[in-house]
């Protein structure tokens, strides 16, 4: 198999509300793709040139533009961005909130197989086209809509509230200790977002005290035990990364570009209740999430010791909590230790989400996998600016779709 290099990319400013700016998805894609190619050191002329010999393709991650913007056929839509994409193979990949990762997976496979030299991966979602209740209902389609979403107000906060309940039940953790750890997770993500000039919440106020005071006017309960401070954001945004083959990297004289070292992709039972039945034989609350992480460690030949920074899918604080043991940072059931000891804080031994994660940076669902992957690239290549962790050689991300149903893990590292 051929190595897959990462040339770079870009994300849009997740604070922006494109509806309020009066701009459509073409505008979003134009800006993201223009910046992404620039970040990767490519031009539209490069795309034209590569396309003459069928050496470039596009991979689009998006969850549900059909609902938010009344648009499908999103691979082809890139031809509206620039005529350089006329004739370039392009298709859309969908796996709910893991759509971006599904697009990256397809792209890396084509490079590995030697089919293309350059793969442009675009993840995007415009979510502020509708009110939050309508948007919450759209997102219910990432669960089993008929059984878990239809007619339910805000289905996802409920599902991840149930994950909190099940975690307490499975491990018998002290409830206060658990809820305080969740509040700390929120506070860390908000604090990290202050270091990120493209984070949605960079100007917002949040403290551990505010996050641990749930059920107030400014921090109402949204699902079970979880309050607004436990949730990720509704976000407009796009992220782009460009992958390349060894041939291309050599031809351009690009040394030291990070590579994809491994991945994991596992799908758990669709229904949340079946997931919980399924975990009875495991010490992990989300055994298929853990398995995807193990697969990525195996494929990369690395262990948790080798990973210097993590990006996780903190759609809710309860999901980041479960990710801690899935990564292997603690034993299952003892995730609070990594929070209490400061291990996962920005200056800790194993930082998680130094740029703010889904809670702090924002969560345009189809873009999130690509945004995380871009952040791994930035950390490994020393381009993360204010949220750079020093001395990163290897980085891991976990991106999932639905109630931890589709699980995608990637390891990005220095090529040695």
């Amino acid at each position: 198999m051929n190595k897959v290099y990462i040339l770079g990319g870009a994300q849009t400013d997740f604070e922006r509300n494109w509806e309020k700016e009066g701009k459509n998805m073409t505008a979003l894609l134009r800006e993201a793709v223009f910046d992404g190619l620039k970040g990767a050191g490519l031009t539209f002329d490069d795309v034209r040139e590569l396309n003459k010999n069928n050496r470039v393709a596009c991979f689009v991650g998006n969850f549900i533009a059909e609902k938010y913007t009344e648009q499908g056929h999103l691979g082809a839509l890139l031809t509206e961005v620039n005529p350089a994409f006329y004739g370039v193979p392009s298709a859309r990949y969908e796996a709910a909130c893991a759509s971006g990762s599904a697009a990256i997976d397809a792209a890396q496979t084509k490079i590995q197989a030697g089919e293309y030299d350059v793969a442009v991966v675009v993840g995007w979602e415009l979510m502020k086209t509708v009110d939050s209740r309508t948007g919450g209902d759209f997102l219910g389609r990432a669960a089993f809509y008929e059984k878990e979403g239809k007619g339910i107000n805000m289905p996802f906060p409920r599902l991840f509230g149930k994950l909190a309940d099940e975690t307490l039940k499975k491990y018998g953790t002290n409830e206060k200790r658990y809820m305080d750890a969740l509040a700390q997770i929120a506070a860390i993500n908000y604090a990290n977002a202050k270091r990120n000039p493209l984070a949605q919440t960079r100007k917002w106020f949040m403290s551990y005290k505010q996050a641990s005071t749930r059920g107030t006017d400014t921090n109402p309960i949204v699902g079970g035990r979880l309050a607004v401070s436990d949730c990720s954001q509704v976000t407009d945004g796009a992220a782009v990364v460009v992958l390349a083959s060894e041939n291309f990297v050599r031809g351009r004289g690009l040394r030291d570009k990070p590579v994809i070292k491994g991945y994991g992709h596992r799908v758990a039972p669709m229904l949340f209740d079946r997931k919980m039945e399924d975990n009875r034989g495991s010490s992990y609350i989300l055994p298929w999430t853990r398995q995807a992480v193990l697969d990525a460690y195996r494929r990369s030949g690395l262990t948790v010791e080798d990973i210097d920074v993590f990006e996780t899918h903190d759609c809710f604080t309860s999901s980041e909590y479960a990710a801690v043991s899935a990564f292997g940072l603690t034993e299952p059931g003892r995730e609070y230790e990594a929070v209490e000891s400061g291990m996962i804080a920005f200056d800790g031994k194993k930082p998680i989400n130094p740029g703010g994660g889904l809670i702090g940076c924002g969560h345009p669902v189809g873009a999130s996998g690509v945004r995380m992957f871009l952040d791994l690239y930035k950390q490994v290549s020393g381009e993360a600016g204010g949220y750079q962790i020093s001395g990163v050689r290897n980085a891991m991300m976990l991106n999932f779709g639905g109630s931890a149903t589709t699980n995608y893990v990637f390891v990005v590292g220095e090529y040695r």
Partner: protein
Amino acid sequence: MMDIKTVTVIGVTGTMGANVAGIFASFGNAKVYCIGRDFEKVKRTIPRIVGSVKADVIAKNLIPADFSMLETCVSESDLVFESSAEVFEIKAGIAGRVGKTLKKTAVSCTGTSGLSITTLAGYYPEEMRSRFFGVHMFNPPYSMPLCELIPTVYSDKEVLDELHDYLDRKLLRTVVEVKDLPAFLGNRIGFQFINEALQYADKYKDNGGIDYIDAILGPFTGRVMAPLETSDFVGLDVHKAIVDNIYENTNDCAHETFFLPEFFRELVSENRLGRKTGSGLYRTIRHENGVEHLVFDISTGDYRDVIPYAFPFADKMKRCIAEGDYEKAFRELAGSHALEAEICRSFLLKYIVYSLYAAEEVGYTIEVADDVMAVGFNWCPPLAMYQALSTVSDVPVMMREYLPEICGKVDLEGLLDGVRPSRYDYRPYFRTGM
């Protein structure tokens, strides 16, 4: 970093005072004595302060107080922030009282939007003048983090640096140090544009006036809100105070553009102060089944329906911006010979020239002009505007062609030498909505 545990905010029932108290209590995690004239009104203001930063947990940091408790509160405070009415005698009186009881290690700030900080410093005891600064925030500070920091001749450099650091890293403000000159930098640049737009509305009153000019300089020209709508939003009285102060106390290359048209003075004298009084340059009437937007017609002196102007150059620009094709939008602007496009072009070019000029006059670096306009006004900042227009045209050539008057008064070559790439992306500022 400065250890600020206790803060006194004076004038907390005003919009700015309340919002600033919220910033100290949340990001600053400080105990805040909230002083107002009427104790009951202060108590009623507390929930508004909590709401301004969306955090119930700060409520216990907010201690209501009135002027009779001023000395007690001040003597316990590490920082005092005066945000009283914009009247010199009132601020001077408070400075006198604060100066007498301020701790030797404490810092005192005034939130004035244009009065002389140096003169106010004179009301402090000599040994405390070095610890007194102007700290001018913009409204609402939660979403507009600009903070102009104004030292005086008395200022202690070390204290200034520490305060700068505290405002920047603890309160998460975008801090720019500017000189103690009328209206400081943000309002000097912003109101040059807004007031000249007002003069143009008067000049072109037979073309429609106020809504005509706003349609020429709307969000598609790099701002969230059209200029005269902005005046209506901040208040006609505030607008008048700012430009009168600049007109009376400065004499720069754009001096005449700070002169207030007569019709505007009349509106102010009739207490038609804009959105806060229900009518001003615009008037909004709420009916059971919708909202009616009216505009003041300068020719007739009456309010009439806002006209949905359709200028071909503006419509083309909006269509391009909606699709994210900014270059094409700027080409439409640069290439049109319509009167409205010429007005628009000259305003945008003059905005760049005047910002470069004012940054030199009031600031210490060219970049501060970008900070104040992006973060304080939500307008495409001048260096980013320069970059935007440069994608399709030779900006210096256009300046000389369209702005002979101001170009004759400034050292254009010298100013343009200072131009460098902006740290801000121009794209988010060009919008198509209102």
